[in-house]
């Protein structure tokens, strides 16, 4: 008697219809959470969401997808509560709604493989019931069905993927504790060195050395394992765009197909959370400016329906995301003309350099506000957001063939591979993702032009700023600095004069007290192996600074 699966063959139709609903609910709860945080606890639009959740619950029930039904059910209860009771509009409730709707979308997406749906639904539902104070209430059918599904899975000997959901802040706490353990390990290492210096070698010292070095290796493994727990599939971000692309294309009266690849590429949640906005900018740009009107496409022999590709791939310890369209490509003549009109230096021959102009602040927004009513598509904003994540953005374009933006992002922001430098006896961490090269300063290679330091680096002149002045160390310089570090962000370069290169180190990033100021040049702080506190330099910010003495 297996009536739940009467519609089993419709699973793809179910996913196609339910996923946009679940994603719309997620977006709405995210917006609601933001509004509540800003003090506006209106919940009027949640009434519509309750209906959507009800539909999702019903559809999932008809498909026999009990875990999804359960999540929709408790979300509906929670929504009913916040609608009925203004006092229930708390941060905790908003967080549960956001989490649950995200889970709902994940489960819908995985619905074709019901064995994987598993315990996350029940675990989440349990927490919602505790939150609502209905922990003892039977939820009836969904729970029974769930239990039966679990039994069936066990019968089939299927691998029950033991997944639990953990509050992300707990992972942050673990990472902080890990950072402290790294510092303590360094202290231990110092003690070991001290003992060796004092008593020379001996069997106990050799044992200690082995223990310290084994601890180091284990810590490295712990770091890797910890990082793995923070990575989520990029599908959670890509999944949001289907609807937005469709709507925008409709507004533009264009036919656009969004193709995603590499949805299971994994990235740190903190990066994923901040990736949505720049990607929306790039996708809007592709649809509004890249894709030609249908008639024009037909005239030049292209398929009337345009394709916009969103692709993610892991390359070593970086993730590359491509947003590509098969539209008309960038118009270099117009870019040059506009750059000149804006008073920018416009190269006339180098196509790549011309393309790079579109990321200059103010360049892309100015015109688009007038051409597309009210829709400022800020490529500069997208580029700034990517740089702030420690990433890079590049554009490639073929006239008539299309435009493709390539973003390169670190896997995580929590641990940053850094070059440790010393300036006026202070140590600083420079993210290696922004270091092009370190150069020993030979006498006579640094020139002063218009009272700014300039050096020739790989055949072109770059500005070189003094680390002490930039960072405000306040020290009076007596001797020239020994090195400069070439920083880059996108196409820009800038040298930074330092006294000493200390070495490479993975540093655990800690937030910076906002009262400390100098936000342009410092992005965070860390504790070095020797226990010293060091600032992490905001390389993208330094490179972007307009005037540095």
């Amino acid at each position, binding site marked *: 008697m297996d*009536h739940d699966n*009467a519609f089993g063959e419709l699973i793809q139709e179910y996913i196609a219809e339910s996923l946009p609903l679940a994603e719309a609910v997620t977006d709405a709860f995210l917006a609601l959470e933001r509004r509540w945080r800003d003090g506006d606890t209106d919940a009027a639009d949640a009434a519509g969401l309750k209906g959507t959740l009800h*539909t999702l619950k*019903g559809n999932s029930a008809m498909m026999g997808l009990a875990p999804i039904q359960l999540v929709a059910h408790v979300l509906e209860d929670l929504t009913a509560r916040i609608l009925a009771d203004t006092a229930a509009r708390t941060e905790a409730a908003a967080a549960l709604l956001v989490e649950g709707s995200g889970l709902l979308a994940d489960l819908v997406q995985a619905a074709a493989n019901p064995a994987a749906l598993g315990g996350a639904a029940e675990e989440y539902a349990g927490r919602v019931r505790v939150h609502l104070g209905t922990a003892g209430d039977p939820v009836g059918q969904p729970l029974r069905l769930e239990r039966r599904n679990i039994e069936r899975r066990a019968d089939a000997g299927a691998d029950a993927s033991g997944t639990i959901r953990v509050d992300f802040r707990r992972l942050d706490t673990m990472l902080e504790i890990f950072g402290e353990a790294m510092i303590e390990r360094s202290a231990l290492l110092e003690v070991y060195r001290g003992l060796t210096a004092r008593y020379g070698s001996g069997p106990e010292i050799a044992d200690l050395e082995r223990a310290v070095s084994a601890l180091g290796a284990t810590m490295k493994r712990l770091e890797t394992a910890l990082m793995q727990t923070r990575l989520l599939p990029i599908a959670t971000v890509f999944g949001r765009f289907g609807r937005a692309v469709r709507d925008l294309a409709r507004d533009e009266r264009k036919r656009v197909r969004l193709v995603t690849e590499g949805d299971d590429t994994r990235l740190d949640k903190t990066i994923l959370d901040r990736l949505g906005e720049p990607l929306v900018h790039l996708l809007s740009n592709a649809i509004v400016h890249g894709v030609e009107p249908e008639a024009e496409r037909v005239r030049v022999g292209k398929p009337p329906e345009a394709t916009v590709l969103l692709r993610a791939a892991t390359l070593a310890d970086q993730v590359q995301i491509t947003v590509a369209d098969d539209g008309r490509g960038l118009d270099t003549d117009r870019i040059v003309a506009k750059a000149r009109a804006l008073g920018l230096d416009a190269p006339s021959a180098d196509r790549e350099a011309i393309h790079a102009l579109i990321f200059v602040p103010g360049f892309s927004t100015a015109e688009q506000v007038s051409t597309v009513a009210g829709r400022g598509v800020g490529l500069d904003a997208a580029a700034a957001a990517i740089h702030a994540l420690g990433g890079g953005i590049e554009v490639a374009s073929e006239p008539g063939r299309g435009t493709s933006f390539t973003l390169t992002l670190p896997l995580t922001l929590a641990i940053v591979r850094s070059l440790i430098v010393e300036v006026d006896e202070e140590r600083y961490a420079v993210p290696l993702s922004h270091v092009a090269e370190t150069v020993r300063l030979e006498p006579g290679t640094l020139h002063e032009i218009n009272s700014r330091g300039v050096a020739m680096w790989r055949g072109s002149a770059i500005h070189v700023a003094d680390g002490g002045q930039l960072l405000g160390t306040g020290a009076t310089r007596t001797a020239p600095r020994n090195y400069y570090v070439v920083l880059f962000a996108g196409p820009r370069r800038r040298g930074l004069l330092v006294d000493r290169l200390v070495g490479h180190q993975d540093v655990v990033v800690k937030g910076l007290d906002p009262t400390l100021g100098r936000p342009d040049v410092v992005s965070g702080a860390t504790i070095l192996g020797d226990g010293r506190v060091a600032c992490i330099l905001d390389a993208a910010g330094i490179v972007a600074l307009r005037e540095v003495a």
Partner: protein
Amino acid sequence: MSHATPRPGTFLVVDDSALHHQMYRLIFSKGPLAGSTVYHAMNGREGYALLAAHPELTLVLLDLNMPEMNGLELLSRRQAEGLHPHVPVVLVTTESTPEDEARGRGAGAWDYLRKPFQPADVERLIARLQAERAPAA
């Protein structure tokens, strides 16, 4: 618990969910209802036009919540215009209050079908309708 077996017929499904149309397609292509003729409408407006064109319908399965003329609006308009009053209509709802049901019956709904449903629920409903409408022996 056994129920009478329904016979194939001509059905109109009015629903804005593509998934539900596929579900009905399965129900009407397998089991005792296989061989039925099914017309599909994605909103009330289309549904009304199809109802007008097919007086021979055995039954209309009408979703309550739809954009562009919901189920109740369709029923009210049919009543006002006296369009094929002999064709029974079942309102399909997810959650209906007794008040909703009263309004639906007042507007001429023969019965309700509650989501989530399974094929057997639809089969049972149609068997009951056919038994009720059969000429008295």
